[in-house]
């Protein structure tokens, strides 16, 4: 083959690669498509999750049923401590069934923010050729933080539907924390036999609206990308704690404050790494504080140190 012919072929190949690259969906498009796919497909399958905890690894198996647009039931089959537990989500409402307590309780739903937009603002996503998951072709999406010291993800999206079939979570240190993967999945099956299981529980008492016996303090510093997404009052024994919630779209920071006797046994400061989060507890005056988040402990400490002291009026 002559040199001009080779050069011509090479240029053609480069141009074609450019056209293909232009035609391929970007990471952002894939994420949006995947979110939309949840709203437009039913599915049913068996999902296995492996979680790395300090000095041990645990595995859970769960039967998952999803009815479009936003109803998902996850029933855990193992390990023994979780077997029989059910999580049911219907849009913003979520319930938890405990086989031991034999009752439903409501749990925190998604934050009332455009979480995907927030995530796209703070994370880059890059598609690369993926492998097969549950015998289906997938695109692998690498989701990396734009600001260092945050967790990252690997998502395997089904090529045909966009559904996420496998999700790996790496903590802020880039240690692999969890792998959650469908071992088998049926897409758009007939779910008429499942409708009983996909109805909201008849009685799941709302958490009584709690009043705090103190005025919570707010941090003056937040790591780049995080925004305040809500607050809640939760019971801890006979006390009530404030739960201030912050998110960057993928990661979260939880700040708890309660009367000192509620949880802080350690003073002045305890710092515990739990692989999937950092946990710091401390006591200041009459209040106990705990902060949790999967991010650089230096940043978390900075948030903790920035909490403005408040005039306590607690008992």
């Amino acid at each position: 083959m002559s040199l001009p012919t080779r050069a011509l072929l090479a240029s053609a190949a480069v141009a074609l690669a450019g056209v293909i690259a232009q035609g391929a969906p970007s990471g952002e498009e894939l994420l949006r498509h995947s979110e939309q796919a949840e709203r437009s497909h039913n599915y049913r399958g068996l999902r296995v999750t492996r979680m790395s905890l300090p000095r041990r690894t645990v595995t859970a198996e769960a039967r998952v049923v999803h009815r479009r647009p936003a109803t998902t039931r996850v029933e855990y089959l193992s390990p023994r401590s979780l077997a029989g537990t059910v999580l049911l989500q219907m849009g913003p409402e979520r319930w938890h069934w405990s086989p031991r307590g034999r009752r439903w309780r409501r749990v925190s739903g998604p934050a009332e923010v455009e979480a995907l937009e927030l995530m796209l603002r703070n994370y880059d996503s890059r598609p690369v050729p993926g492998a097969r998951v549950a015998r289906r072709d997938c695109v692998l999406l690498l989701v990396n933080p734009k600001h260092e010291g945050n967790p990252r993800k690997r998502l395997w999206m089904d090529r045909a539907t966009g559904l996420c079939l496998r999700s790996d979570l790496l903590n802020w240190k880039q240690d692999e924390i969890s792998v959650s993967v469908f071992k088998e999945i049926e897409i758009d099956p007939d779910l008429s036999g499942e409708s009983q299981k996909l109805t909201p529980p008849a009685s799941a008492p709302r958490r009584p609206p709690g009043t705090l016996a103190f005025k919570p303090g707010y941090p003056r510093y937040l790591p780049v990308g995080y925004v305040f997404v809500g607050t809640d009052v939760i019971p801890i024994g006979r006390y009530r704690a404030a739960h201030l919630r912050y998110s960057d779209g993928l990661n979260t920071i939880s700040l708890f404050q309660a009367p000192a006797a509620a949880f802080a046994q350690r003073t002045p400061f305890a710092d515990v790494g739990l692989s999937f989060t950092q946990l710091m507890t401390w006591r200041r005056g009459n209040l106990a504080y705990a902060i949790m988040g999967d991010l650089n402990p230096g940043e978390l400490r900075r948030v903790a140190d920035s909490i403005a002291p408040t005039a306590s009026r607690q008992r």
Partner: protein
Amino acid sequence: MKCERARRLVEDIIFASEGEASPRDDVGIAPALEEHLWSCARCRAAMRELRILRSQLHALGHRRAPQDLLPRAMRAVRLDWRHRSAMRRTSVHLRRALVAGAAAVVIAAAGAYLAGHRTSNLAAGSSVTANVAPLVMEYADFRSAQPFGDRDGMTLAATQTAEGPRR
């Protein structure tokens, strides 16, 4: 919740070994137990005694003993615990002496094996205090509600981490 049930649950929590179900993992039970412990000084004291014993064992080192050493020692303490009705009839001093004696035997037995394997990493990852467990649950619920949230992983982590690594 009555004292008898609370103490049985406390015993299960304190002596649960790795992979074993623990009532603390159960969000349906944990709040009621905690509520009881707040209001019952005797159960709190019982829990404290068992915790001290366990932490003394932990402080001896992080290396795992031969499969049967700790379970055997713990069974001895459990028996002691289960026969508390008989102990109730004894004097407070005698009861304390018995508990202290059982603790000393367990610690000595474990210590003999674990001597020389002490690690300096007692703080890292080893101590999520009991009453922080509901906070970990809340954190996990919140985090798993994010887009592409790790629902299963967070549920698993919250239920398994309530007490840090079990021995």
